[in-house]
Structures are given as structure tokens and as C-alpha cells.
């Protein structure tokens, strides 16, 4: 038995870590799901992180002032950026142990982690305890920035922002088109996602003076939504706001057609309505469905920065930039910019530089106002966008200055469709 324990230990201790960092290197730990159900997120993000490091190292060129200034990390007199990737397998305890290992053994100066909200929740505590910078580029649970942490920074929007953008859209759309939207019908599935979404939507409806004429929680695994659609039809709200996963979203569309329910406007909470299966199965029938999103592939051609980056990314990843790598890139560049401005790699200097971050919106690939952190570490410059299904594909329709299509309103009735 001693033999086995000895062997087992020999294995783990013999694992060749990279050579110890030279003082000039900036080392960043990148901890993502690289196996398990969400592995695609980590795998699609890896090339974009490498591109970010190359931009800082001057080996890849993105011809825009913000990225040019970072070239060769002048603040650190030409230090080289080195990334160390690791897999947390979607497990909070692994993420936490990995953050500790990164800081103590790999001697990284900051970590970018974790995608899953629950892994981020556990792993960021380790960094907070150690007093080391923890950067999050995409976890959307609002509670993460409500913990009073000093070392936690999030560049991406959370669920509260996402719902806000729907109501901003209602306001601007009414002003632009001169139509009146007064009543809302909410349907949401019965797990946390739906319950949280329904709660935020009700709060915002009350704040902005909309009347909720239908407030309906339904079984996520329901095999029939006949009675739900009939109630929608009876209430006939100006806007129907569904929060659904994939199968129920598809079932809603089919049942609406069956029962001839003709909503004038549909505003969905991402998830099921944006899934590739939904688009494939009922994309045509779901004509006119609006949904919130943080980034859209059809915006790439409109934004020169995104277009330049996509040309590099698509070659390496074999696909266009989409939501996940777009947010990951923005997060990593924000961190690299802060380290460059800090002019040092000690944790307090990096933290202070992150607090002072101010990246103008026109330098980002996202349609945001910019990157600027409030006292909780949340980026205040975030902005969601609204997409609409037109001709079986999602197109950006809001904010209006970034739109690639006009809003289709009202949605054509079933009898008028081919």
C-alpha cells in the first residue's frame, strides 16, 4: 500500500509545471470549463484569450488606438504576457482549489475565471481571502457583485441589466413609432431561472407603470401548454413576455399556431428562445420574436473592431465570434489594460488600476458604453441588445443606432402568413 501512495504522489508531484516565472513576465491564470456539459464555452474561449495575449505581446495586430497602446505592455517595459489554462470541470470545489494553486504554485498575478456562476461564487472567495485580483467576464448571477468583495471585478452584464434593456426598448420603441404599450403578459417556467426572471420583470413593470394582466408560472416539463395559451389569448396583453427553456419555448409556438393566438409583440428572456434548436425547429413560425442578448454575430460587420478581431478569430476557431468569446475577450483586454497601467504586477497595484479602469465604448467589440467599475466591482457601462427573429434568423434591432434591421411590428397574424 505504501507503494501505491508513493506512486500516486510521485505522479502528482512529478507533473511538470512550467518553469518559474521570470520577473518580467505577466502571468494570468485562465480557469474555464474544458470538460463536461459546458466544455464548449472553455474551448471556444481559448483562442480568443490567446489572441488577447498576443495583442499585448505585439505579435498580433488590432489596428485601433486602445489595442495599439497596449502593444508590448509599455507600462511594464515590454514584459511578456503568459497565460496558463486550467479546467475546473464545472465543479465549485475544483475551481476554488485551482485558484489557490494558480496563485501559490504557478505564481500568477491575476486569474480570469470561471463562466459558471456557482464556480465563480466559490472560487472568488479563495482569491478574496488571499487578496489577489479575480476577474470575471461572463457569470450573470446578480448576487456575485453584492458580496462586498474588494478583489472581484465583472465586466459583463448580470440578469438585472438584461431585463432592464427590455424595458428601455419598450420606452424607446413607443417614442419612435408612436405606439402605446400598456399591458404585459408574463409566462415563466418553474425553476430558478424562470422564477428570478418573473420576479425582476414584475418589479420593473411596476416601476415603469405597465400593467401585468397575466402572471403565470407553468411546469417546465409540461407536455401540453393549451390552457396557458388560452389564458394568454383571453388576457391579450400588448406584449407577451415568455421566460422558457428550449422544449417549452418550441411548444408555445406550436400551440399558439394551433389555437390561433396572435400576440402583437413577444419579448423573450434569451435561453430557450435563442437556442439553436429553437431557431432550427420553429424559426420560421416564431417570426417577430424579440429576445435580449449581450452580443450578436450579425453586429460584427457593423463594428470595425469586432470585424478585425473576427477575421483573426474565425481563422483559428473555425467559427465566427459569438456571445461567449466576445465577452471573454472584452474581459481579458480590460485586465491586461489595467496591469499595463498599473506598471507593476503586485496585487494592490493591479487592483487599484482595475478600479480606475475607463475604456471608451468605441474601442470595444461590444455595443457597450464602455468599461468602468463601481464600488462593487460591476462594470457600469454594460448594455444589452435586443434581437428579433426575421426570416428564420435573429437580427439586431436595438439599440436603434446599432440595429441591422427595423423592428417588425405588429407580428403578422397566423392567417396572413403563408
Amino acid at each position: 500500500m505504501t507503494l501505491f501512495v508513493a506512486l500516486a504522489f510521485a505522479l502528482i508531484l512529478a507533473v511538470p509545471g512550467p518553469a518559474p516565472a521570470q520577473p518580467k513576465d505577466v502571468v494570468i491564470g485562465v480557469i474555464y470549463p474544458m470538460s463536461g456539459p459546458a466544455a464548449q464555452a472553455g474551448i471556444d474561449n481559448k483562442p480568443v484569450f490567446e489572441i488577447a495575449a498576443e495583442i499585448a505581446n505585439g505579435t498580433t495586430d488590432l489596428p485601433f488606438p486602445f489595442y495599439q497602446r497596449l502593444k508590448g505592455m509599455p507600462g511594464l517595459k515590454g514584459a511578456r504576457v503568459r497565460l496558463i489554462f486550467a479546467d475546473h470541470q464545472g465543479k465549485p470545489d475544483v475551481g476554488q482549489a485551482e485558484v489557490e494553486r494558480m496563485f501559490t504554485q504557478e505564481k500568477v498575478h491575476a486569474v480570469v475565471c470561471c463562466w459558471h456562476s456557482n464556480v465563480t461564487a466559490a472560487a472568488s472567495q479563495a482569491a478574496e481571502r488571499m487578496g489577489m485580483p479575480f476577474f470575471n467576464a461572463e457569470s450573470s448571477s446578480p448576487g456575485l457583485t453584492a458580496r462586498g468583495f474588494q478583489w472581484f471585478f465583472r465586466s459583463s452584464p448580470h440578469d438585472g441589466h438584461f431585463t432592464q434593456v427590455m424595458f428601455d426598448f419598450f420606452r424607446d420603441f413607443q417614442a419612435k413609432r408612436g405606439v402605446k404599450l400598456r399591458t404585459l403578459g408574463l409566462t415563466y417556467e418553474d425553476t430558478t431561472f424562470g422564477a428570478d426572471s418573473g420576479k425582476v420583470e414584475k418589479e420593473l413593470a411596476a416601476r415603469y407603470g405597465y400593467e401585468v394582466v397575466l402572471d403565470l408560472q407553468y411546469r417546465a416539463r409540461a407536455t401540453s401548454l393549451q390552457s396557458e395559451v388560452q389564458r394568454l389569448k383571453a388576457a391579450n396583453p400588448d406584449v407577451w413576455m415568455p421566460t422558457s427553456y428550449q422544449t417549452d419555448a418550441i411548444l408555445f409556438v406550436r400551440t399558439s399556431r394551433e389555437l390561433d393566438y396572435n400576440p402583437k409583440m413577444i419579448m423573450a428572456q434569451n435561453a430557450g428562445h435563442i437556442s439553436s434548436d429553437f431557431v432550427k425547429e420553429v424559426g420560421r413560425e416564431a417570426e417577430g420574436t424579440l429576445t435580449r442578448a449581450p452580443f450578436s454575430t450579425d453586429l460584427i460587420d457593423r463594428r470595425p473592431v469586432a470585424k478585425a478581431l473576427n477575421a483573426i478569430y474565425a481563422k483559428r476557431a473555425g467559427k465566427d465570434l459569438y456571445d461567449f468569446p466576445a465577452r471573454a475577450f472584452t474581459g481579458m483586454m480590460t485586465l491586461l489594460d489595467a496591469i499595463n497601467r498599473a506598471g507593476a504586477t503586485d496585487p494592490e497595484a493591479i487592483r487599484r488600476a482595475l478600479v480606475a479602469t475607463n475604456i471608451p465604448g468605441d474601442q470595444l467589440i461590444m455595443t457597450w458604453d464602455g468599461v468602468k467599475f463601481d464600488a462593487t466591482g460591476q462594470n457600469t457601462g454594460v448594455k444589452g441588445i435586443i434581437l428579433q427573429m426575421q426570416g428564420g434568423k435573429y437580427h439586431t434591432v436595438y439599440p436603434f443606432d446599432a440595429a441591422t434591421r427595423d423592428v417588425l411590428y405588429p407580428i403578422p397574424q397566423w392567417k396572413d402568413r403563408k
Partner: protein
Amino acid sequence: MKRAVLLLLFLAALAFPVVFTLPFPRHVMIMIFLYGALAVAWNILAGYCGQISLGHAVFFGIGAYTSTLLVAKGQLTPWLGMAAGAALAVLVSQLIGYPVFRLRGHYFAIATIAVGEIVQTLVINWDWAGGARGLFVPIKRPDSVVNFQFHQSKAVYYYIALGLLLLALAVTRWLERSRHGYYFRAIREDQDAAASLGVHVAREKHRAIAVSAALTALGGTFYAQYVFFIDPESVFPLSLSILICLIAVLGGVGTLWGPVLGAAVLVPLSEGTRVWLGGTGKALDLLIYGGLIMVIATLQPAGLMGLARRFRRAP
């Protein structure tokens, strides 16, 4: 000879944190002790009594949630929470026992999977307990034994985890030699024959699951105090139940040291391959991990303990 080896191992375990001061090697050892303790606890019901459970995450989760809810909502020390969690796990195990112990073999195993899934779904929908978003253990400084929180060093966690493992081993050792240990094994070999000889089969099965559940719940509380965050996905998943079973089976079911051996091999193997190759995004680490498990299982169906015995027999 055997005693000398065990004593040496024990001393080595005590000295480990003194030699290895970095958090990660200590973390790996803590995980060996924790999963070792869980597998030893599982082994009491499955290895000795022959009732293969694939729902042990239920007891682990009860331990984690009970202590965390008592800390977060009642300001109670996690040590009391640990005891309460173990007590609650025993109670739940008895309730589960009534229906599922009527089933035998595969049907019992399937029923325990179902119980695990039901409990996880219930907790996901239980808003007061954090629902799907999970719970944070409120961080209290400075480090204190009463609060069961140690932020400066993992050494204390290390010794607590070692204590858990030793406790589980001591209980198993005691059971092995007691009357109940013999009843358990009789039930495992042939339930009907055992009953005909006067063994109260149902009562003994309930005893086995009670001990097993209590020890598993202690591990759950330890996990919560160690990670400071729990959610249904991390403490109630089927994958955890299967991992516990895998460790025990790989090490050697129905033996005292088998599950510990299983943990001592599997945990460093899993962590080592993950650290070494996990960042490539090609899942190579999991391929190697899975491949080695298959090799061991094929060549040595009795588990690593069988291999160890063969070594010992050789001159």
C-alpha cells in the same frame, strides 16, 4: 510487521503538512481523506451488508445543508450543525430504508438513484434554502475552531479531514468484529439463509444505513466549511454518489482499507491528470483517467486490495 507499516503511514500523514506547506498538495491530501472517509462509510452499507447504494449524495448534501443553514440562519457553530446533520441524515436514511430495503440487487440500486434525484429536485425548488442558487457560508474572521473556519492555512482542515477518515475506519473496524458485522456479511452472502438463522434482516439493514448515512453527513458538513459555498449541483449530484461507489469498488469492496486505497490512487490521479493536461481543452486527462480505471478493473476485479494481497503473498 503490518502494525509497523500502519504506524509509519500514520506518522507520515501527521507530518505531511509540516513538509508540504503549499495549499495545493495539502488540498489533494484533504480530498483523499474526505473521499476516503465517504467511501469507507459507503462500504459499511454496500461492502459489508451488500446493499449497493447509488444515492449517498443525499446524506452528503443533508450534512452540508443542515450545518450551513444553521450557521447562516441561526448563528449556530458548524460543529453542532455537523451533529444535527448527522442526526437528520440518520432519520432520513430510516425513512428511505422502509420502502427501498424491500427491493433487492439492481432494483435497490435503481431505487436509490431515484431517491437521490427526488431530493436534489426538492432542494432546487426550496427557495428558503437558496434554491438552485445555493448558499454561502458567512465568512467570519479571525480563524477559530468554534466557527470551523481557517483562512490562514489548510493545516487545520487537513487534521480534521484525517480525523474524519480515522473515525470512519474505527467505526468500520469495530463493526467488523461485532455481532452486527457478522449479521451484515450474512445478509450480503444470502439474505434468506441469514433470516432462516434468526438474523433480523430488516433491522440490520436499517442499522447499516444509519451508520453509513451519519458518517457521510459528517463529510458533507466538512465540505461546506471547506469550500464556503454549496448548491444542489455540487452536493447532491448523482455523479458524487457514483464517484463514492467507484472509489470503494476500485479499492476493494468489503475490506477495511480498500476504500482508502481507492481514494489514495484515484484522487491524485484525477487531480494530477487534470492539472497536467486539463488546460488543453481536449479532455485528454479524462481519457487517461478513465483508461486507467478500466485497466485496473479488468486486470484486478477484486480491486486494488486484491493486488496488494498478491504482492504480500509473493516472497
